[in-house]
């Protein structure tokens, strides 16, 4: 599982406010190959719900979500 989660790309969305983490994620996922993983780091607490909603709406898979030190980390697998 863990080796599968090696991100192909990383997006540092720390310090950005709504709706930028989601907007940047939607742009960055295009640079990841289908099946690849994008790691997103954000500090906006709303991103927890928002990235989840974005994945649900776009069909990309939210593989894992972590939080610590006020940073939220998302591992998103591009599905289409």
């Amino acid at each position, binding site marked *: 599982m863990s080796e599968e989660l090696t991100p192909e790309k990383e997006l540092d969305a720390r310090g950005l406010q709504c709706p930028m983490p989601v907007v940047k994620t939607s*742009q960055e996922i295009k640079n990841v190959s289908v099946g690849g993983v994008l790691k997103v780091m954000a500090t906006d607490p709303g991103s927890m719900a928002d990235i989840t909603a974005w994945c649900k709406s776009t069909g990309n898979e939210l593989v894992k979500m972590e939080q610590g030190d006020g940073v939220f980390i998302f591992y998103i697998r591009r599905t289409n």
Partner: protein
Amino acid sequence: MSENGPKKASIVVFSGDMDRVMAAFIIATTAAAMGMETSMFFTFWGLQAIKKKRGTGKGLFGKMLSIFLKDIDGIGPSKMNFGGMGRWMFKKMMKDKKVTSLPELRQMAIDMGVKLLACQMSMDVMEIDREDLIDEVADVVGAATYILEAQQADITLFI
């Protein structure tokens, strides 16, 4: 509702208030980010959000009105503007909290393919020409075009 293809969002921007226009662009960029085909229809006071910073109008009334028409950076909030103080304060507070500015949000919307439409009739009444609007405006249209957009949309909003 769109039967196949991507979902669609259609937003009427009637207001020229900074806070309302901000909400409109946040929703539009987010809808586009979520894979929706998004269009914004700017009418009446909302035209200020896609207007260049320059004087408009041909006749006396049009030129008088022009004094009160701003561009996206010049519009004030719906409450507590106090002759521009409120605009300055909100801009500063948003900047301090690292909220994306309104001109940046508009550029983001354009970059993400949000379709900007301008209302022909309001432009005629307010004596605003196509050249007075930013180049990125996709088309100048009437209400029927908006209704067609809205008919096919999964989300419609009037702001």
